[in-house]
């Protein structure tokens, strides 16, 4: 059942990406292209979901929430995705780094142990593995508080791709994906993180957790990952002397 849905969506998304490129509408070609390059291997193509919810797409693929009924054209597909998730105001950041002298296999293995993530993702306090697909995440929030959620692996393609999403009842709905791709310049690691800012008093805490400039925070996280993988340690000046008074 799952497989059938997935294949259907792949077909749908591929065709909608073509029409999107041809019609050059709303200037979102570069987004479309980025999403097109997001996942390689031909198994899963998210092209066409550029303005849609990552979490929704992942859940749709995992749970069959989005059925293939011969939908035609991008618009109707987007509507369906939005309906399926109820999310349409997400913050999404994506970054890529190239890492030398480490194979996709090695990087995949390190990342797949989510408990390793806090070593280079500064805002994470801890990640605890619950079982094969589930993990519990704790992130630092202001005033010694924290934000917590359980996450579930949605897609796990060995040495290539991991996607995950928070499960029902999370303090903040969020999703992510990491792709490892071998190139002649090293292994390209691409990460996409998406979260939906909740209303009310949590907003400030969430801004802190995911960064007031989320692009920069993800960029710094990936730079530290690269340092750790390439140089074996993360460059720092914290704790050095100075004449600050």
């Amino acid at each position, binding site marked *: 059942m799952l497989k059938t849905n997935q294949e259907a969506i792949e077909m749908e998304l591929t065709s909608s990406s073509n029409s999107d490129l041809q019609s050059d509408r709303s200037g979102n070609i570069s987004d479309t292209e980025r999403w097109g390059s997001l996942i390689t291997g031909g198994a899963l193509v998210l092209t066409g979901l550029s303005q849609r919810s990552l979490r929704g797409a992942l859940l749709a693929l995992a749970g069959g929430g989005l059925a293939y009924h011969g939908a035609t054209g991008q618009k109707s597909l987007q509507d369906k995705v939005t309906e399926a998730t109820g999310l349409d105001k997400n913050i999404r950041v994506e970054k890529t780094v*190239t890492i030398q002298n480490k194979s996709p296999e090695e990087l995949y293995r390190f990342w797949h142990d989510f408990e390793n993530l806090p070593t280079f993702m500064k805002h994470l306090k801890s990640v605890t593995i619950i079982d094969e697909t589930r993990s519990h995440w704790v992130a630092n929030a202001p005033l010694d508080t924290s934000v917590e959620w359980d996450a579930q692996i949605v897609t796990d393609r060995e040495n290539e791709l991991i996607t995950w999403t928070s499960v029902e009842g999370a303090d903040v709905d969020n999703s992510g994906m990491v792709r490892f791709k071998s190139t002649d310049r090293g292994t390209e690691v691409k990460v996409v993180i998406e979260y939906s800012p909740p209303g009310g008093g949590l907003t400030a805490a969430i801004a802190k957790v995911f960064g007031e400039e989320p692009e920069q925070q993800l960029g710094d996280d990936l*730079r530290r990952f690269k340092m750790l993988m390439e*140089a074996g340690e993360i*460059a720092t*000046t914290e*704790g050095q002397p*100075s*004449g600050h008074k």
Partner: protein
Amino acid sequence: MKAVCWQGTNNVQVETVPDPKILNPRDAIVKITTTAICGSDLHLYNGFNPTMQKGDILGHEFMGEVVELGSAVKNVKIGDRVVVPFTISCGSCFFCNRDLWSLCDNSNPNAWMVEKVMGHSPSGLFGYSHMTGGYAGGQAEYARVPFADVGLFKIPDGLTDEQVVFLTDIFPTGYMAAENCDIQPGDTVAIWGCGPVGQFAIRSAFMLGADRVIAIDRVPERLQMAKDGGAEILNYEEIEVGDALKEMTGGRGPDSVMDAVGMEAHGMGLEGFYDKAMQAVKLETDRPNVLRQAIVACRKGGTVSVPGVYTGFVDKMPMGAFMNKGLTMKTGQTHVHRYLQPLVDRVQKGEIDPSFVITHSLPLEQAPHGYEIFKHKKDNCIKIVLKPGQAA
């Protein structure tokens, strides 16, 4: 320990600060025996870098003795005498692997600051603002050296501190600048700026086979030192440099030209004033009048080498001359690690004694005085070394 701390524009002070500690497995601590004030420290002293913070420890040219090692450093021992490249390099990224050490991907924890302005970050640097990592510098009694297994170079016996300390920066910088001139037999090289880097560039240009070197400055003792190194000299306050260079080279212009001055070039006439004004109102951060002159003076098809430091934007580049004359420009922070062994070999063979450039040797405590005389070219000052531990 005692350290030279930046306190604001035109204000450095020697303060007592905590000793450095090992922070990472690849760190080492070096007890500093000789350190120097560099021309580019004056850019910080003059307040041109907005990412300096009060209390930052200055200095990126230093050497000494290893006193402590992180668990991952195996190639040097406690007690070894070492020089420390001013560029911090991990030794294992794309750029380090290609001998482009000053472009290291992994040594600048504040890379995002530079990326905003330049798109990508070069390596971290010692004692050179937060934009290049915010690493504490070596004008101090001790310094922490990250990536010490690739960043420490052991000095062979029999060489004095004064002969090897400039391997950390100005000697390889002058040498790389000359190498970037792509010197062919019979070539004439024109060098703007006879400060310490210019002096090493002059001697390096001859070592690399230049037939003639023409050195341009206005400070008599610098011009004299250039002449002692074999250069023909031009004082730009007395002569129109562009015309003179053309006449001296049979109307052709120098085969390669070098801007060994950089962003704080002393303004000459209206054009200089224009740049100074632009810089003052932050429309232009660097004053490139030497670069403009050099491009216009260079012969057709020649090479422009830029060891001088630029950090921001320049205005009114003579792009027409650059393009229509088919020039090539080569530049970059120095890949110091690349030059350590070859240059120490030249010193050992007696081809050059880098200590020629030193005019002042002062105790560390006298650093404020040192900055003052270096900035204003007082007391015939060309290059100052500081000696931590020497009685003040």
